């Protein structure tokens, strides 16, 4: 590699700029002796055919606006373990979550082996604390082996908690019951909920 020592590189044609094919900055990096002119809302970062690959941020990104309500500062995927507390045992405890900003999407599939001292009407172990403002309604897409004559089964995550209470209807045309005593040995529930965390 040869070294070319120069003081200033100037454009040959006024307004044409200077094209450089590949630049490596070393030691002191780049020093700008005049302000870099930035124009609001005109420059794209990448393009449809010239995309960047990965983006690493220790902070977040403002999307669609510059207010705190537009600030996305967290994304995470992972697992959690649904349970009913006590000394219950299980044949399956599957939980997955995706957190986008302050919103959590949690899915679960739980089959109780022996209920023991576990709860008959609550699910615990959700991966993030629910905000303490209003309950978050979830949905159960499949259930079997439950103790009551259940026509409909659902649940909600409690404010300021990681627990959820079951709700359901146990007779045709009946009204919904809260903290429905449903779980027993062999019960299985599969569901999901979307809620806000603190």
């Amino acid at each position: 590699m040869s070294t070319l020592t120069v003081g200033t590189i100037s454009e040959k044609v006024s307004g044409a700029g200077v094209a450089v094919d590949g630049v490596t900055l070393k030691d002191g990096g780049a020093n700008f002796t005049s302000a870099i002119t930035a124009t609001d809302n005109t420059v794209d970062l990448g393009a449809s055919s010239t995309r960047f690959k990965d983006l690493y941020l220790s902070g977040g990104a403002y999307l669609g606006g510059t207010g705190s309500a537009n600030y996305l500062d967290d994304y995470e995927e992972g697992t959690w373990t649904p349970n009913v507390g006590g000394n219950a045992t299980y044949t399956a405890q599957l939980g997955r979550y995706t957190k986008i900003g302050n919103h959590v999407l949690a899915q679960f599939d739980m089959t109780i082996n022996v209920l023991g001292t576990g709860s008959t009407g609550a699910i615990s172990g959700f991966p993030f604390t629910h905000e303490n403002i209003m309950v978050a309604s979830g949905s159960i897409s499949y259930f079997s082996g439950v103790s009551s004559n259940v026509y409909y089964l659902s649940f909600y995550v409690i404010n300021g908690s990681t627990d959820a209470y079951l709700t359901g209807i146990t007779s045709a045309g009946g009204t919904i019951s809260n903290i429905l005593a449903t779980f027993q040995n062999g019960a299985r529930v599969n569901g999901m909920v979307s809620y806000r965390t603190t």
Partner: protein
Amino acid sequence: MALTEETIQDKIEIVGDYKMVQVRTARVIYDSGTEISRSFSRHVVAPNISADDLANESTEVQAICNAVHTDAIKTAYATHLASQEI
């Protein structure tokens, strides 16, 4: 190439009115010492955790829970849960 793994609690947070202790556990895979994969699982320790269950937590989590889950917090959380039937 030597694959190794370790499990670490890489984030412990205290959140909310009832000092919920949120714990993120990371399973990290290394290839010859270079991290190539990191996956997460989460659980939350509430003020109403039993003594037996708390004993199963890491020493660090136990210490945090013992510090923040005061009797006042435990009482407030129990009262809160009892009031949450809709």
